[in-house]
Structure formats: structure tokens, C-alpha cells
């Protein structure tokens, strides 16, 4: 038989906490219609789905919420919110719950990516290495592909119109994958630049649940772009 929840005194500490942090949470609005769960690819993982997630919050079953690893299967993709008749953003709530988990209990790699990001970029390679790799690859192209001898990869070019961020994966793992984009930008002929700091396009602090981390990383990046005087921030593929 199923569980028994004694709600003789209903306590919904977690729900209230989330509502405080997210005024537009609307957890109580849930009609339990199941639309979210029906559209969520993570439904059923860890015996959880978006509707149950909300329901446990409503019924004050905080332990279940705090313990479930489903929060790491929810990709905060917002497909539920997209069609939810009450517009409830379960991903947003999941984010809060992620942040409530003590750092030591969080998945180590995820937390590490964010911590590294705060230090520079999510992979932790030194900014100098990034600058060097860009230069190195560019040189290689100039040598091997004569038709691209004029290809550029500007770094910290103040006053460039476009600022381009760079996912840390390429400079660390497959640097030649940076080239196609350079070629495209070159072919189109626009004025762009990389930055030698806060250049990482990815931001794993978005996923750990600590807004201050997210804010910090975003703010540092914004300042960098403004410092360079770029008017357009290109988010790469």
C-alpha cells in the first residue's frame, strides 16, 4: 500500500521558502492536470515528475524534495512552463531546490564547473593558455590554408563592434573547431573580438542553484564587454 502522510498539522516550510525567493512561483496554482508531466522527458526518472514535485511541495513533504536527485535530471528546459495552463515554471523551482542542497552534497563536477567559472572559465584553463591557443591555431591556418592567409582572431580589440564569447570546450579539447566561425566572420567581414578574460560562453553557475554565483559570473562578463566598448554580444553556437 501507499505511503501515509499525516497532515494533521500541515507544514510547508520548503514551499514557503521557495515562494519567498521566487514571488512568481505560483506553486499553489497547480491544477494537478498533468500537462507538465505529460510533456516532460524527465518524467518518471527517480519516480518523480514535475507535477509530483509540485504536489510534494504543496503537501509539505519536504524531505522527499530535498533528497530527490531528480533535480539533476530536470534540465530546467521549461518545456512544462511553456504549456502549463498556470504558467508554473517548475525548472525555476528546481533551481531553488538545487541551491538548498549543501554544497558538499551536490554533484561534484557540476559544482566544480561553477567554481572554476568563478575563477575564470568552466574548465579552469588559464586565460593565457586560451590566448596562446587562439594565436597558435590562427598561425597554423595561415600556414596550411593560403586562401585564409588573411584570417583574423582579434583579442581584446577595444572598440570592436562585436564581442564573441567562446565555449571553453574548443580551446581545451578541439581547438581547430574554433576556426570555422572565424572564417565565417571573416567572410562576412565584421569587426569582432575575443576577450582574454571572462571569455567562456558557457555558465554552469546557472545550474548549481546559487544565484549569487550566477550573478557574479554574468556581471564580470558584462563589465568586460562594456570595457571593450562592443555594442553587440554574440553568443556562439
Amino acid at each position, binding site marked *: 500500500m501507499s505511503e501515509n*502522510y499525516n497532515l494533521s498539522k500541515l507544514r510547508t516550510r520548503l514551499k514557503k521558502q521557495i515562494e519567498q525567493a521566487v514571488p512568481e512561483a505560483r506553486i499553489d496554482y497547480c491544477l*494537478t492536470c*498533468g500537462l*507538465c508531466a505529460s510533456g516532460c522527458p524527465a518524467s518518471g526518472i527517480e*519516480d518523480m515528475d514535475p507535477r*509530483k514535485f509540485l504536489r510534494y511541495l504543496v*503537501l509539505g513533504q519536504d524531505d522527499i524534495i530535498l533528497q530527490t536527485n531528480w533535480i539533476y535530471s530536470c534540465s530546467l528546459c521549461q*518545456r512544462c512552463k511553456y*504549456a502549463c495552463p498556470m504558467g508554473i515554471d517548475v525548472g525555476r523551482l528546481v533551481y531553488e531546490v538545487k541551491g538548498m542542497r549543501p554544497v558538499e552534497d551536490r554533484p561534484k563536477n557540476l559544482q566544480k564547473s561553477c567554481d572554476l567559472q568563478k575563477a575564470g572559465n568552466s574548465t579552469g584553463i588559464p586565460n593565457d593558455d586560451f590566448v596562446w591557443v587562439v594565436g597558435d591555431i590562427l598561425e597554423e591556418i595561415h600556414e596550411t590554408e593560403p586562401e585564409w592567409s588573411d584570417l583574423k582572431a582579434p583579442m581584446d580589440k577595444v572598440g570592436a563592434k562585436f564581442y564573441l564569447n567562446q565555449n571553453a570546450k574548443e580551446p581545451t579539447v578541439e581547438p581547430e573547431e574554433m576556426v570555422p566561425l572565424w572564417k565565417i566572420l571573416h567572410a562576412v567581414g565584421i569587426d569582432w573580438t575575443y576577450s582574454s578574460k571572462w571569455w567562456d560562453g558557457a555558465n554552469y553557475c546557472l545550474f548549481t542553484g546559487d544565484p549569487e554565483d550566477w550573478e557574479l559570473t554574468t556581471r564580470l562578463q558584462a563589465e568586460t564587454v562594456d570595457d571593450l566598448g562592443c555594442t553587440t554580444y554574440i553568443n556562439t553556437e
Partner: protein
Amino acid sequence: MPKGSVLVVGGGIAGVQAALDLADSGFLVHLVEKTTAIGGRMSQLDKTFPTNDCSACILSPKLVECGRHLNINLLTLSDLVSLEGEPGNFKAVVHQRPRYVDPTKCIACGLCAEKCPKKVDNEYNLGIGKRKAAYLSFPQAVPLKYAIDPDNCIWLKKPGRCGACAKVCPAGAINFDDKAVDHELEVGSVVLALGFSPYDPSELDFTGYGRLANVITTMEFERYLSPSGPCMGHMERPSDGKEPKRVAWLQCVGSRDINRSCHPYCSSVCCMFAIKQAVIAKEHAHGEFAPSIFFMDMRTHGKGFEEYYNRARENGVSFHRARVHSILPADDEGNLRLRYVNEQGGIEFAEFDMVILSTGLEVDKNTIKLAERLNLELDEDNFIKTDVFNPVATSRPGVFVCGAVAEPKDIPQSVMEASAAALEAGSILAPARWSATAVKEYPLERDIHAEPPRIGVFVCHCGINIASVVDVKAVTEYARTLPDVVFSQDNLFTCSQDTIDQMVNTIKEQNLNRVVVSSCSPRTHEPLFQETLRDAGLNKYVFEMANIRDQDSWVHKNEPEAATVKAMDLTRMAVARVRGEEALPYHTVKVDKSAVVIGGGIGGMTAALSLAEQNFPVTLVEKSAQLGGNANNLFRTWQDDKVQPYLAETIAKVNNHPRIDVQLSCEITEAGGSVGKFTTTLSNGQNLQHGVAVVAVGGKAYSPEGDWQFLYGQNDKVHTLLEIDRMLIDESEDFKATGQAVFIHCVGSRIPERPWCSRVCCTHAIDQAVKLKEMNPDMDIFMLYRDIRTYGQRERLYQKARALGIIFVRYDLDHIPAVSEDSGQLIIKTHDPIVDAEITLQPDLLVLATAIEPQATGSSVAKFFKCAIDAHGFLLEAHMKLRPVDFATDGVYLAGLCHYPKPLEETIAQAKAAAARATIVLSLDEVPAESITAQVDPAKCVGCGVCVEVCAYNAVSMDEDKNISLVNADLCKGCGACVAGCRSDALTLQNIGNEQIMAAVEAAFD
């Protein structure tokens, strides 16, 4: 003196009903319709719930009546532009666009449309299929006149380029120079019946609507089902024309949604709409058919709805309590795939041939503009704002509203409101009654007494309703061979305006003196054709109908040959019957211009006041010692209007009204007579003569017992809703200390003993919970429910309750909450299906939302007035859809809980509607009485008196002197009990004599 005319805007069922009620009670009506024909949304429907009546068939007579009414000025292609002035004296400007077809010349032959080269999407069919630029929106259109669509007409865009229609029109009706006209109308009041628009789900990409061919809306499917629709009633799916076998309906598309459609309200009708479509589609289908309905809460809250739902389930309609996120293609064939979760979160997949979106109702954009022009307030959902205690009044005096433009609602509710709006619109003009109207003049009736029978037979195709089964041409040919038949003709729709007009001419030209129409049921269409006979100078009783549709083509659809033979037989029988019929005198009864209202609750008082304010004397009979009924125990409406002040005010008005005689502690002991002249005896011995009666005897709360007792009466923490209301009225402080409260819904409702939904309890319970929460925000409140049925804008209250943190836990009949006590402490165990867990609650307060039952007195009052009751003891109206406040017995009307459970505002509307219908009778000096009466042949009568004994109306008495019986034609209802009882054949029923019946029987055997 105020103006004696009224402007009705909107030619849907509500506008048509309001126009008819007003015109019948003495006002000239200008009926403004924006399209080319009246009929509105209802005309687009195939069938209507819960009776499965053919929509066009029940609507058509009303449209025709409207089109023919002497005191209804029909303005099609027209819009209300402006309205100035005061109640009683408005000046309205109505802009009428050109039709480009002269309606006085058009004979609706259809040649213009046939020859018109320009094809355009057929908006009447919601864009499915094409029509021409010269077109008729639907076959039973009123007026039955073609029109040219200037946006698509080749000539009107580039004169000289086409003009095919003008070339072929045999009547010379095409007029490309037609110009728009602005009509300045002086009216005393205005009724707005602007209707709704179906929500367009195109913006909801996840439904696939507009991208997946086999995803359509319910309104579209209605056109697919309709015989006059693009597929002639053959169920087809759009992608390949194949008959779908697996069909899903998705509920609440564009309703109960604050995210994408911004429609927080419930559209109220879609649940029944979908179930009806599932049931009807199953009937349409050849072979296997598997309908599935995906829903949140099943809202079958109207009369007969819950039983319809139960029947649908038993008959193989699957119901899934699940909302589906996205509709996906299943393959390249056009089939569709749904992924959804069951209530416990288990993932399920299902494939369908077609998916139908139950799209909600919304206010038309033009309505919003019009409201602005007329300076009318709209509510937060853009519906026209009304007053709870006067549900048809807008923010502007003298302007009234009815139907779905004020809130989503079904047809009967719209019809009720239409009558209520007619009441209000007419009431303020009562002194001007009959001042602007014309009187119908019939041509002199031909004396056919000495003529040999000349019978005309009109055989109807009824579109394909008859003709797809019966060989109508053959029947028509055959009819011509019958003795005394001098004329026969087949018609596409015999009830259409042009055929009716033509029938008048034919009767005159052919010198017919008897008429037979072989078509549908005389129950719906006989009055229309009888009127036609009168217009042609014939007595209306030399008429018979052969029912070759309802009782032939529809019931023998797989046996066309036998059905054709039967149609011939039925026609022959009708001819045999009509041959012996004679002209009968039109009896009338002088109207006693006063009313008796039975029941002193809100319904009865409202009806009484509505009539008294028009100067008709009213006797209000209340069986208890005080007025007010159930309202004495109601705290507030769901919109937070306090009931007690309103009740006190109403009681005072009633008590002080010079034309209302209130009889308390009084009941009816006897009633007799008929419309216009009733005689009623009260328990105080008083004898009343009155022209009409309104029955509003109310309902009562079910007293919990058995499985549904939940310690009620045993534990003092258990109360009913009304008891809590009483405490709230008394401003009880008890709730301040309540830590936890639990409400149990559906106590005594929706179970085999009481299968109906009590309609009001969800809203009532939730409102109470909200009130408690507002008084004591720390209170935990749990609502244990089966389906939340906060229909219409009441859904906002449900949302508010959730927002306040009131927790809703669903239960079903397999998991009825268990209530026990331990040393006085209530313990409730219930099951939450979402997390599949048992929940234990220990409330300080348990409130039971008990069912509403009919009063036992209802059935006795019904019997006095020869009115019917339904299987549950609620009073049975004349027609569930279109006559919601009338009884089958003329002159008697009903309102309030005795009809069905309903909230206060609906009782008020229904009471006003009942008053409106009663006003029609009271505004006349005399009403028609039964003309088909019994007659005595003195030569055959032996005076045995059997006839006197079997007459239920005291219409037969003995002439003591001559020792023969006498029939009082005023009292005779024409039942024929005396005729059948008479051994001597001394009695006969005029035109239904033994000889006519025998002739029909003999004619049955060819």
C-alpha cells in the same frame, strides 16, 4: 410615454428568443444581425446535448417565426453604430451594409451561386470547404436570400469583369449598385445578444493546430458532422477524407489557462460539447469507433448532463483525467500520437486518427469595440459586466444583455437570459405596450365546406436527412396518384422561408383545400405549416403531416427501399386522414390578467415583482410562515455580494407592492382551467382566477445519511454549507480558532441514488473556504472533491482559493474519505491520487457540501397544473434546450431549484424569464384555446354519463332535461377519452374522429 420598440442586437438563439418574447408581448423589435442570416452559433451545430436533438431542426422553427413575425424588423448585414439617449427614449444608428441581392426579388434558386466563378473559404463552415462570392450561408437561412460578398466579388472589385450572377438571375435580383444605409431607430430599450467567438488555438503550437491536418476544433468537427456541412454529415478527417476510428478530444484548450490564452475562466460548455460529439460520432461511425476524452475536471453540471456522462462512459467513450502537453504525428499517414501521464504519473501512449481540441469561448473583438462605443463596462475577461442580482442588466440603464457575451454559457441558460432580458427591456416600456406594433391580418378564410377535397402534398428532402434514404421523387410522384390529390411537389427544405412563401402561392393557384406535408415531426413543425395555411386563406385544421424523417428515414437508414415504401404509406395515410378533415373554429379564452406565483423564495419573489411592476396583479403563495426560502440561509454569492441585505430589500418590496398579495403558510389545494383562465383554490379557502402561474417551489438540502453521513449530527464539528453560511451571517467568531478545516464535496450528489450534479456546491464550498481563509489566514483548508465544477467565471474563484493555499485533494467513489473520531477529535483519511498516498487530517471543522434535492411539494403542484416531473422529482420543462422555463402545459412556468440546482443569479434570471413568458399571455386579451374538441351527436347519445366520468377537465356534463351529454368546448382539451369510452359512438373528436383514424388505418394497407 416611452417608445414601444426595442433594439435587439445579435441574431443568435439568444437574440432570436429575446426578439420573439418582446414582439409577442407587444413591442416592435428591430433585430440587428451582422451576417447575412440569423441563427448564430447554434445553427452551426449538428446536435445539441443532452437530448441529441438536431440543432437546425429545433432552431429552424424559431428562425422562421422570427423572419415572419409582423413585429420583428430584421436587419441583416447590420451593425449598431451608436446609441444615444435615455431608457425609454434611445436613438440608435444601425449601419446596414449592402447585400447586392434585392431580397424582395430573390427567389433563392441558387443560380447566382452556381454560376459565380469566385471560390472563397466558407467561413460558415469555419473555413472548411469553399463557397462562392454569391452565397447563402446555410440551407435553412432566414432570410433565405442570397448575398454577394464584396470582398471577393469580381465585379464589385472591377466592374465589368464578371457579372455572371446578374446574367443568370431569373428574378433580376442582383443589384451591384446596392448601397449601405444608416437606419436611425427610435427605441425604448436595447438587448445585446452578441454571442461569443470560439477561441483560435493557432497560437498554441504544441497542439499542432494549423500544422497537423487532423487536429481540428470542436466547432469544426460540428461542421464535419452536420448534414449541411462540407461533408454532408459523413464523418471524415481532413487529411485524407477517411472515416476516423480513433478520436481524442482535448479539453480546456483556451480555457482555464492564464499562461497562453489568458482565459482564466472555464468555458462551461466544452465538457458536454465533447461528450456529445463523442456519442454522436460513435453513432455516425460505420463499425468500430473509439472515442477518448482527455480532461482536467469533468464539468457536467447541468440538468441531465451527469447522466449523459455516465451513459457515454457505459457506451464506450473513454475518459482520461490527464492533460496532454503536445500532439505529435504518429506516422506519415496523418495519424497522431499522444503521450500523457495517468493520475499517478505513469506514462502512457495512445494513437489517434484525429484529435479534436475543445476550444473555449471568448468575447469577440468587435464586441469590445462596441462596448466602448456604447460606454458599457466590461469585466476582467472582457465579458459585458452585469449585476449579480440583475444578471441581465449592463452598466448602462436601459441596455440589457443575454447569452454568452456576458459569460460562457450553454443554450438553455442563454435562452433563459434572453427571456429575462426581454422582460427587463419590456418592463420599462410597459405603458407603451402595443403602441408601435402592427396586428396580423389573415386573408379571409375560404369556405371549403361544400367543395370536394383538393389535396396538395409537399414532400421534403430535409437536405439529406430524408433524401439520403427515401426516394423523395418517387414518393412525390406516388402522392400524385392518390385519390383527391391534385398537386404534389418535393422541396429541399419544406420549412425554409422560400418554400413556405411558395406554398402559400401554390395553395391559392391550385385551389387546394387540404394540405399534407411529408417531412418531419408535427410536434415541431405543424404550427409553422398551419400558419402557412392561414396565410393562404385556409383553415389551419385541414392539414396533416406524414413523419417520414424522425419515424422513417432516420430509423431505417439501412433499408432505403422499405423506407421509401413506408414513406409512401405514411403519405397515403395522411392523405386519407386529411380528406375527412373539416375547417374548425378558432376558439379563444379571455385572459384573466393576473398571476399566481407558488413559492416565496427568491425565484418566486422575483417573478412576482417582475409581473407586478408591469401592473399585473399577483398572488404569491408561500407554504412556510416567512418569505425568502433558501436565501434566508445564504451568506454571499461567489462574487462577494451579501445575500441578506438583498433578500431583506426584496421581501420589503414584495410586502409593500400594492399589486402583490402575499399568502403565507398557505398551499394550493386544487387547480383547474387552462392558459388564460386558471382557477386555483388555496388552503385558506381562497379561490383565485388567474391567467398564468409560475411554479418556484424551490429545493432543499440533502440531509447526509449512510455512507455520506460523515458523523453529521453526531459530532458537533461537522456542518453543512448552509449551517456555515448561517454562522457567517451571524458573524460567528468560531472560525478564528479553527486550525484545520476540511470540506467534502459531492455529499449525496453524483451517486446512483441521486445521479445529478448539484451544480452550486463546488462554488459554494470554495467560496466558503476562501471566506474562512480570509478570516483566518493560518487555517489549513483541504477540499476533498471529485471534480471541481466552478463553471464559467467561477473558475476565477477556484484559482483564488488555490492561490490562497487551500489544498484540493481528489477522491473517487472507490476511495470515499473515511471520517472517524477519537475522543471527539475528527480524523479523516483520504487518498491523494497524484502522489498515491494516504493522507490523514485532523480538522477542527468538517463541512459537507450536500446535494440539492427537489421539494416534495413540486410534484404535487405539478400535478395540479398537469405538468411533468423528471425521474428525480425536478419539474420538467417543455424542452430542455429551447423552452427552459415553460411547461408543456401552456400558461404555467417554472423557475429556480424546483427545475434544477442552480445559484442565486441563475434563479433570478430564470424567474425573470418565467415572468417574461407569463407576460406574453398577460399582455393579450385573449389566447387561443383548443379547437379540436369533442362533440356530441344528440341522436346517438343515450345519456349514460360514462363520458362525464372519464373527462379529467369537467368539460362534459349532462343535460339533465334532455338526458344527453354536453361538451363545454372552452374546457375540452381534445384528449378523446370520452370518445373512446362511449359505447354508443355519440361522441366524436373533431378531425380525429373514429372515421379519420379508421381511414388512416385502412390506408396503411395498400
